[in-house]
């Protein structure tokens, strides 16, 4: 099964959240864990981007592309970019891959390529 990144929909008012919240930012009325996970879309447009040269110690690469993507449903997320010449406004599509490795854990996140 393909891995997904989830948004969280408030069971009371339907507002979508990413990242997860304990209390809905719209209705603010939730009891504990009153949210349903909904997979985020994987296509969108690039809103802004950077190439980072000075990375945290865990990264064994020279540079890392990062960007904020506005997804098809209007929500936004940050992801790694595997794009040679990123441009604001370009169409991108994401896959869920390992984005950070630590001693005992692999962390999965969205990696975007040109659509």
């Amino acid at each position, binding site marked *: 099964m393909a891995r997904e990144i989830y948004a969280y929909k408030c069971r009371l008012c339907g507002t979508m959240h990413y*990242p997860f919240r304990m209390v809905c930012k719209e209705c603010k009325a939730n009891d504990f864990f009153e949210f349903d996970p909904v997979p985020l879309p994987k296509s969108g447009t690039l809103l802004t981007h*950077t190439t*980072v040269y*000075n990375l945290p110690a865990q990264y064994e690469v020279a540079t890392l592309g990062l960007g904020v993507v506005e997804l098809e449903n209007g929500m936004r997320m940050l*992801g790694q970019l595997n794009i040679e010449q990123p441009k604001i406004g370009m169409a991108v599509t994401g896959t869920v891959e390992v984005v950070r490795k630590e001693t005992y854990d692999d962390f999965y*996140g969205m990696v975007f390529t040109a659509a």
Partner: protein
Amino acid sequence: MRDVYVAGIGITTFTRLEFPLSEIAAYASMMALKDAGVTEVDQLYVANMGAARVNHQTALASAVADSLSLLPAGAAAIENGPASGAAAIKAGFQAVASGMDDVVLVTGVERMREVNNLEATDFVATLTHPLTEYIYGVTLPAHAAMFARLYMEKYGVTERHLAMVGVKNQNAALNNEWAHLQQEITIEGILDSPEAMTNNPFVAEPLRFFDACPVSDGGAALILVSKEKAQELGGPMIRISGVGQATDTHAVFEREEPTDLLAVRKAAKDAFDMAGLTPDDVDVAELHDAFTILEIAESEEVGFFPKGEGHIALEKGETALGGRIPINVGGGLKGRGHPVGATGVAQAWEIVTQLRGDGGKRQVDGAKVGFTCNFGGFGNNVVCLTFVRED
């Protein structure tokens, strides 16, 4: 609510310091205590972000209280990311304003050079959203870079404008003996000459080395007192007249308008409203220029210039010493350095120095009203303060 005055200030040199963290804090604190002429305090707040993670020390305020023989004063450390300093000033303000305490020591301190540059960058990055930002390798320079790119696209800010902020602030530090960077730079050297791109490589595109503050160690301290105590101690009456603090989304991408810094706008407005002042009343300001783009954006959000016009005011020299609203005349974070927990207190230190007329070569003539903006997270926790000199 009682009025709160700054009766003493102290600072260490901002640089790489080979002293234990608590000694750096104690040194700045001693200077402030001596400056105010007090040997006892009711309470101390120590602002710090990384003691546990970087220096393997916890409960820092207890260590500082004992080291300074301030026992049995109350003591607590305040960790609020890069806005720890001004958050501690706010706590000290509340303690005196409420009538609970008459004399409060507020000390900001950080020792980041104990670890290498990559570890320091990672330590600061731990303030980002753990699951939607940090795991991707986001650093504060990366956030600032993505923000800068949007600003360039939307408002016509260029690399040259960013370099102008860097040159202004780093060269201003030459007039501040406590500042970390003591090297003159020019637009030619960091942008225009054939060697410029070697001198000034990318940190996170489009931001370059000279767009970022250095990684520094250092401490700064204030003594906050009631009006009665301030009069008893004598000396210039510098009052903290406005305090504003606001928060914004933890994940930066979630903000509706990604070029807005709403917490800066709200914190500044609240501080000005409390003080009964407007941005036009400010004679000298300290903005949180951890990255050059932030000075431009904050100068708009706090109300000095309309949104999108900060870089135009910069071009006209309005933010330089001698301009309409001099910003970061002591070097800012860019030139003075940015020991994260110390910065908010160091900003207040500079403003009080200015309002006392002790600025020397960097003195803003006749400064009576000062303003600070201490920017935590990537704008998700901001504290603004106004200061007035009462004659």
